[in-house]
């Protein structure tokens, strides 16, 4: 029986692994989730068969109430509120870990009956569970805008957090040395909760998804720790799985926002603006958002309408063949791709035509500015390749600008804009371009050819 239960946990773990793996690709994601749910069902049923369970009454009460609440929440929540919902659910998971740790501690004579190593695991579970619980609630609150989305900072916050961590350690040590003191344990719980709040509160609302993902990873670790506490391999495996994959996901999300994981782990971000690569420190001040080739590729790979705006930089990079290849690739994935040709793009009349004809881009895909501008609003992604002046809104908005009055391609009306250029240097007209600072714009820095090669590779892999 015990063996069967253990093997069931293994089976559940295998289902979780497979499920998670499938969740990373759009085609298999839904099935993956179902597999993972089946895994959970197996794990729960196996647990219920455990001979250690003396009564089902409390279990059933808890399960029915919990399931009902979960069901209700999942049914009624609006699609737009999904992220905070996930945050909240995560908080519940963390809370459960915290409660289990507490209950175990209480059952073991308030910790007196525990060997040191188990006691330590309980305190670790308490800490992680507590942080996850309060942190998730704050994150959800920020997303729901119940709490200000702005990063809230107070002076010396980092030191205070450090103090809290020290406090946790001290309390744990005290509890190990002299077990059985409920107030100390309660203090531990309190500090953990406070830490969760303080770690999340200074972070900007836009970064919350990353935080939730990280807290999710934490809650996996909490589950794993719980596994150690109650000596259950199923919990250990599954918790470690979620912990590790959550960490990787967090990292992926960080990269998508151009952050280092370190930055996230140490909390307190959101104070530095979301910014760029390399040496362009100056850009930071104006908040240009840069994007990696991988993420740009992901954005492109799954969008259905793409407009390419080529400029002089495409000619300089001699990347005409690459742009055609990328476009073909996207078309093969079902996207509609058009090229928007500005009448003075490049450095001679018809420069873009010469370039794109060389790469065999069909004439039908070349759209004149006047014809494509009305379509811009419906365009999901605009890929601006080495163009600058011809997409500069200053031509519309800034009468003092030397290019004022020139008709431009209205890329700023589209839903996403990816701009490929090497730096923040101006183009022919020698003026800055507010488009680059638009919140919808992501800069993909680098030589256009190199960037396009990356995009091609990544889109293929997507």
């Amino acid at each position: 029986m015990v063996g069967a239960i253990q093997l069931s946990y293994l089976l559940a773990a295998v289902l979780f692994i497979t499920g998670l793996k499938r969740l990373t690709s759009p085609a298999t994601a839904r099935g993956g989730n179902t597999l993972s749910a089946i895994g959970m069902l197996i794990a729960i049923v196996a647990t219920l068969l455990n001979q250690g369970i003396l009564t089902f009454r409390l279990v059933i009460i808890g399960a029915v109430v919990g399931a009902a609440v979960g069901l209700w929440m999942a049914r009624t929540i609006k699609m737009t509120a999904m992220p905070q919902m996930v945050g909240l659910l995560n908080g519940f998971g963390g809370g459960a870990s915290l409660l289990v740790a507490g209950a175990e501690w209480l059952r073991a004579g308030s910790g007196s009956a525990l060997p040191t190593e188990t006691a330590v695991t309980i305190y670790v579970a308490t800490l992680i569970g507590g942080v996850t619980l309060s942190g998730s609630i704050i994150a959800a609150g920020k997303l729901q805008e119940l709490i200000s989305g702005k990063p809230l900072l107070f002076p010396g916050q980092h030191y205070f957090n450090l103090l809290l961590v020290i406090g946790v350690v001290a309390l744990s040590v005290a509890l190990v040395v002299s077990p059985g003191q409920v107030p100390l344990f309660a203090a531990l719980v309190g500090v953990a909760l406070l830490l969760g709040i303080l770690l999340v509160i200074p972070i900007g609302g836009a970064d919350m998804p990353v935080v939730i993902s990280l807290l999710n990873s934490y809650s996996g670790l909490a589950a794993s720790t719980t596994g150690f506490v109650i000596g259950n391999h199923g919990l250990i495996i599954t918790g470690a799985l979620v912990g590790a994959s959550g960490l990787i996901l967090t990292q992926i999300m960080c990269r998508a926002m151009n952050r280092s994981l370190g930055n996230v782990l140490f909390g307190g971000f959101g104070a530095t603006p979301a910014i760029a690569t390399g040496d362009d420190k100056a850009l930071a001040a104006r908040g240009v958002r840069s994007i990696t080739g991988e993420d740009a590729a992901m954005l492109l790979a799954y969008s259905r309408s793409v407009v390419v705006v080529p400029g002089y930089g495409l000619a300089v990079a001699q990347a005409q063949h690459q742009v055609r290849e990328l476009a073909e690739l996207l078309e093969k994935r079902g996207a509609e791709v058009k090229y928007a040709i500005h009448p003075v793009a490049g450095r001679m009349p018809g420069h873009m035509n010469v370039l794109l004809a060389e790469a065999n881009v069909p004439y039908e895909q070349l759209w004149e500015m006047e014809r494509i501008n009305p379509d811009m609003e419906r365009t999901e992604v605009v890929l601006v390749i080495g163009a600058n002046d011809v997409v500069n809104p200053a031509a519309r908005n800034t009468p003092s600008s030397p290019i004022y009055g020139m008709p431009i391609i209205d890329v700023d009306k589209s839903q996403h804009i990816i701009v490929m250029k090497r730096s923040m240097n101006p183009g022919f007209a020698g003026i800055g371009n507010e488009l680059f600072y638009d919140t919808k714009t992501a800069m993909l820095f680098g030589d256009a050819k190199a960037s396009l090669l990356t995009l091609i590779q990544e889109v293929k892999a997507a």
Partner: protein
Amino acid sequence: MRIGVPKERAPDERRVALVPETASRLIKTGLEVIVEAGAGEEAGYTDDAFREAGAAVAGAAAEVWGADVIVKVQAPTVEEAQGARSGSVVVTLLPPGRSPDEVRTLASQGVTTFSMDLIPRITRAQPMDALSSQSNIAGYKAVLLGAAVLPKLFPMLMTAAGTIAPARVFVIGAGVAGLQAIATARRLGAIVTAFDVRPAVKEQVESLGAKFLAIELAEGGEGEGGYAKELSEEAHRLEQELLREAVAGADVVITTALVPGRPAPKLITEAMVQGMHPASVIVDLAAPAGGNCELTVPGQEVVRHGVTIVGEVNLPATVATHSSQMYARNLASFLGTMVRDGELAIDLNDEILSAACVTHGGEVKGAAWKV
């Protein structure tokens, strides 16, 4: 307000100042257009097409000249100018300083004249930039002419009857015409090298897949007071040397070097021509300004030392359909700056109008004609 489009009378001028499509656009904005019968014929635009576009077709030139604004390709002759109505406006191509008699006549007639050659090169004026649109076409056609005259193929071909080496094309001056020439020659498969005094165009030349010929300065030639002049002489010698070599290695040389308002620099000497392979070709786009080659005879195709030198002065006219179309667009954009609500409203404080104005209020305004 009425716009008149006379038939061009200059020899070999096949273009027309307005095409039906542009005429129809103007008419839609509330203007009237009157076209001299047969004006667009040589460019492939029939009178019927103009009529369909909503323009009137006049049998007599005088009727057309009675319009408020006369649009032309070539500057009016003295005779035509004398028939112009006082207070009317003439818009035409008119290179700075050229046709002084005609300009004087226009001024004395009280005609306001604008030259499309004088449109300032500011961003806003790009759609009116006839110099660019016509140079562009000239650059394209120069290569076609060169290729038609050259007794060789442009592209490389590896065939059962041996391998044909690609033609080498050397373009001097990489402005609008030069760049289009580069692009066209590259399209045909030639190996293209280009030279220009402005180092900024290196990148532009390379962006078209051609090689830029850069002057390599002698080592250690920098600094040291008073040395600069000698260096520049050395640089000039080097430049000459470089050109000589590049010209000698080329099958087709296309020259487009111009300095606005001045005679074209003589860059290719007779000696350089002598150094070329027999049966090579020079297409001198600077011919209207005297030519970049010493041996160019503007308006003629001559053979010197076995080298054919094409001195065609009006290449855009040989592509009349499209050059007219583009010129007409330029004109329409330009007219836009002087028309308000369908009425003439010339504001000579406008940057573009003031720059393009040649005669106004009985006076010659264009600086190039004042001397």
